[in-house]
């Protein structure tokens, strides 16, 4: 027996490793949406390293820039950019809100809720398997981040939501372009409601629109809030093509409003937004 084990040691180790992976993969099937503690542990161990590397290079770059260029001007510029960034966010949400809000009291409530909730952060990593699936951001549970918090780009367009695993200072964001994502949306003009999923290639598909429902090319899509994850009236994308074939539903391709090339900074809206109506009372 011992001789057999010695002779077959390599094969036994290999098959043990394969078996371990198969068990690991199988375990995720019944888990569904629940978190995997093993994955969470590995993510928690290595994400600070990634964070540190990005932080280091960021700092080296900052020192270089600040020293060799007019650093005082740049500092002011940076502050103004950040302020503009927040103001732009606020402005874009307020515009939408003002379109819908009827009473002045509701506007006031909306502004106070919104202003407190912004959290700006950097993108520190992307998904190596598919860049259109997820990103990693430099805020985590210590900053109050929780699952399903909404992530927007600089212009206030929807990027995705926070998902597990969340480490102390890093978190993963599922992009709306991921095929497993789902956002309840409504078209801006015709008010046709459907579910937006990613196609995994940088675009999205609007599902469950009957051929009888009128939607037009170029029409903007906004979140409907029916999924109880994303608040209402956030701009998501624009319809780029509509096909009506033999299937029960229209095949609608949507270009997301956010730009992948512009994903250096994002905005998180912490807190349970299910209670906040972007459309007013």
């Amino acid at each position, binding site marked *: 027996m011992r001789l057999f084990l010695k002779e077959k040691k390599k094969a036994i180790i*290999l098959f043990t490793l394969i078996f371990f992976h198969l068990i*690991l993969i199988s375990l*995720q099937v019944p888990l569904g949406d629940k978190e995997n503690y093993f994955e969470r542990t*590995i993510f928690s161990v290595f994400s600070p390293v990634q964070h540190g590397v990005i932080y280091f290079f960021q700092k080296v770059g900052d020192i270089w820039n600040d020293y060799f260029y007019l650093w005082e001007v740049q500092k002011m510029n940076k502050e103004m950019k950040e302020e503009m960034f927040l103001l732009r966010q606020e402005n874009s949400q307020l515009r939408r809100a003002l379109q819908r809000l009827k009473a002045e009291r509701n506007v006031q409530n909306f502004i106070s809720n919104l202003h407190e909730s912004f959290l700006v952060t950097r993108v520190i990593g*992307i998904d*190596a398997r598919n*860049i259109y*699936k997820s990103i990693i951001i430099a805020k985590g549970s210590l900053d109050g981040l929780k699952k399903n918090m909404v992530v927007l780009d600089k212009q206030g367009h929807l990027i995705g939501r926070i998902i597990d695993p969340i480490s102390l200072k890093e978190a993963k964001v599922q992009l709306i372009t991921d095929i497993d994502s789902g956002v309840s949306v409504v078209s801006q003009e015709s008010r046709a409601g459907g579910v937006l999923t990613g196609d*995994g290639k940088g675009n999205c598909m609007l599902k469950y629109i009957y051929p009888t429902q009128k939607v037009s090319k170029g029409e903007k899509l906004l979140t409907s809030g029916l999924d109880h994850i994303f608040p209402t009236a956030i701009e998501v994308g624009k319809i780029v093509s509509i096909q009506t074939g033999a299937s029960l539903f229209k095949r609608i391709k949507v270009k997301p409003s956010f730009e992948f090339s512009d994903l250096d900074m994002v905005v998180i809206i912490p807190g349970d937004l299910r209670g906040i109506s972007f459309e007013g009372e």
Partner: protein
Amino acid sequence: MRNFVEIGLGIIIAFLLYTIIGKISFSLSQLLNFFTLAVIYFAVAKGELYGACIGTVSGLIQDSFSLGVFGVSGLSKTLIGFLAGLVAQKINILPLMRNFLFIFVLISGETAVSIFLYYFISAEYVSEITPFILFQPLCTAVLGSAIFFLLRKFKVLSS
């Protein structure tokens, strides 16, 4: 002990390169697979068992940073690591062109195993594959064979 330090360092370097490249360009991070290069390097240098174990560790690290099924990269890298060590014992893969082909075939194999596993889990995942991933074996093989060639030269010079 020295082996483990070397391997740990190799994986950390691969992880750092993966992070930096990801920050430089989204597309570039899909074209170059530093984790697999580390697996192949140690599998050739230390043998198939090391290759399989390093494949498991680096594959799971990569899995934890991507939004897919946790374990797919781990399994494919384990197989590739074992295979790399096994083949390297039977064939001389040191000449540059042969080295390039060796890495190219292994990374193509890894991509094929991953696609098969994803297809097996859910066919929908296969539709997500971007053209960048299909160019990964070629780009990584070019870079890998160049790096391994330079490392060998450096070792010869330093000895």
